[in-house]
């Protein structure tokens, strides 16, 4: 693909041309998918009304097929804030009572990580469709059991990997999977913040309850809360799973009684030798968040939404002469200078992945797709498998860091990854 073609394809096109067969879970996000549902709605119950849960509630206001009928939380202040968003929704403090509510078709689970498994399993038993926040569960065993029971239940099961529904990711992954940028040679992920990751605690006895991300009993820290979003990039781009992971981590700055690392670095290696890294530090935010796919012929900055050709050609000075000659103009093109070579082109500004600023990160589209699937009762192919392995990889990475060893996904947790 030369620069013209590159710019044409990535600088002036939305999702047109993307093959939905490669992204079957998107059907619910299309106009046809929405129209097919008519006025049908899915009655939703939200378990966990913390910041993430309330974020979903805000987004659900934009999903015509969503009807939020029930809210649940053990922490009253959060439940009150959620009720302010959906005042008509029934309130519960015990999720089991919400699951007993026959007026609830589907459950969104946005509770601390260690509770995902139990609530999801109970939801399947209660015959509910489930959208569970990522990471899927606290251990690989739990993830696998959730996957098996979720599929066996015949109910729709989504995990909150919203990038799978983000238009710019979809567009890029489609092109990468078609080989338009040459083979993938490296995947880099990083997430840097400069914040203690603490929430305000009104009373000391609520410390572990509110700041659950900081304690091993409830969370696997940066690996489950941040890496999980990014580790799907390699599998998604290449359609294969890493065969091993090594890593290291520690508490390098926020030595405040927390139990999870504030600095981690993990390397995942795929069967073809390609490495995918994840690095996170929360005592320096200079580099922010980055997700980059390095191909032989292009670099994709997923977080920035830009693509850079590996050997960008300068804008030709003499190509413009075609137009000038057409108009009968004796032009004076400005292009001569010292030798242009690939090595001197690092200031290439790249091109935007999307033709116009794309708001959002796929969260609304994910809810839309979930509602579509819950109404039709059809589990979209592959989306759960992609999310399952994202969770497995972050948990495996955490294990590798804790054990100081190179680890592979245990055979007993392998599922059919599929070929989509």
């Amino acid at each position, binding site marked *: 693909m030369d620069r013209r073609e590159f710019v044409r394809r990535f600088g002036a096109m939305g999702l047109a041309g993307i093959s939905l067969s490669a992204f079957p879970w998107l059907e619910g996000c299309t106009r046809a998918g929405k129209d097919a549902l008519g006025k049908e709605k899915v009655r939703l119950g939200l378990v966990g009304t913390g910041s993430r849960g309330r974020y979903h509630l805000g987004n659900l206001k934009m999903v015509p097929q969503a009807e939020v009928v029930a809210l649940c939380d053990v922490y009253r202040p959060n439940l009150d804030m959620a009720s302010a968003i959906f005042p008509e929704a029934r309130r519960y403090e015990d999720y089991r009572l919400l699951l007993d509510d026959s007026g609830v078709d589907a459950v969104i689970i946005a509770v601390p990580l260690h509770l995902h498994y139990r609530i999801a399993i109970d939801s399947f038993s209660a015959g509910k469709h489930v959208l569970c926040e990522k990471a899927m569960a606290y251990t690989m065993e739990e993830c696998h059991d959730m996957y098996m029971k979720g599929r066996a239940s015949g109910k729709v099961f989504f995990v909150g990997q919203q990038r799978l529904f983000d238009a710019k990711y979809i567009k890029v992954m489609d092109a990468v999977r078609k080989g338009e940028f040459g083979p993938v040679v490296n995947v880099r992920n990083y997430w840097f913040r400069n914040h203690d990751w603490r929430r305000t605690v009104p009373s000391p006895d609520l410390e572990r309850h509110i700041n659950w991300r900081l304690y091993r009993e409830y969370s696997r820290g940066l690996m489950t809360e941040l890496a999980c979003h990014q580790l799907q990039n390699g599998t998604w781009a290449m359609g294969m799973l890493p065969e091993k992971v090594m890593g290291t981590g520690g508490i390098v700055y926020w030595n405040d009684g927390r139990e999870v690392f504030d600095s981690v670095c993990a390397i995942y290696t795929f069967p073809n030798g390609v490495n995918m890294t994840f690095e996170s530090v929360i005592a320096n935010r200079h580099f922010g968040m980055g997700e980059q796919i390095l191909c032989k012929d292009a670099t994709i900055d997923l977080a920035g939404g830009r693509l850079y050709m590996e050997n960008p050609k300068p804008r030709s000075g003499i190509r413009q002469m075609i137009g000038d*000659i057409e108009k009968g103009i004796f032009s004076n093109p400005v292009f*001569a200078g010292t030798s*242009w070579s690939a090595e001197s082109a690092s200031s290439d500004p790249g091109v935007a992945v999307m033709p116009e600023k794309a708001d959002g990160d796929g969260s609304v589209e994910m809810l839309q797709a979930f509602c579509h699937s819950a109404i039709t009762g059809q589990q979209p192919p592959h989306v759960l498998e992609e999310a399952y392995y994202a969770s497995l990889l972050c948990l495996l990475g955490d294990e590798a860091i804790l054990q100081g060893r190179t680890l592979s996904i245990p055979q007993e947790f392998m599922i059919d990854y599929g070929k989509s």
Partner: protein
Amino acid sequence: MEFIYSDRNPSARTAFVSFDAMHTVFEMILVNVEEEKARRLACDVESLLHSLQSLLDRHAAGSAFSMINAAGEGVAVGVDDELFSILQFCEAFRRGTYGYFDISALSVYAVAPPYVLDAEARTVALSSGHVMLDAGGFGKGYALDRVKELLAAEGVSDCLLNFGDSSVSGAGRHPFGDGWQVSVKDSADMFCLRDGSLSISGCMPDGKAHIVNPASRQMVSRDYMIAVEGRSAFVCEVLSTALFAAPDEMRQALMSSFDGYGYTEIRKCYSGI
């Protein structure tokens, strides 16, 4: 390869061709050549440049230059007539430029002559194991002369060729002018090529020095570029390379042997914005 053909102006049908070659980009404009023929010529030119690259690219395993460099001191390497002729010219230019054009400038030590040619056996042998030959100072210019030759043999009278922005050649004339106008980036300098060529030498666009002074073996850094205009793109490139490397006071003497070629110092001008 990118190929664009426009016949919107019937009096000046235009073909534009662009492709990667010799680690940079080659472009050409052909005027009033039938589309089918223009496409064929584009392929012929691409093949020609790739064959030249396989001759001159010292980085490419199996290229003639890489094999000569790898042979070591005194080992005769057989070369074809074209490369033999190129090496003859390069040695003549080295002598004619007081050594400031030297295809062995990247060698660890200065050795003169850097290689010995055997016209009978059609071989070249390096004078020292420390010598390394590099075509960076003339390759694009030589290639442009060869392309012009090919196009002329095919009856193309009006064309503009650009190789990496630093080597430009114009044959015939622009359909609405009496030559081919070319302006230099970030400067006020403009040239009009009438069956002529232009070569520009200087630091890289990012400011990095890359031309070596063969006498001192040091990179040459200047805040201006040297442009040489004349008939042959090969000679223009040889001279712009030599003039950029040579001390200011050598320039007149150096140019005195090359009739029909002139040079200009190109200084950047800023818009003041």
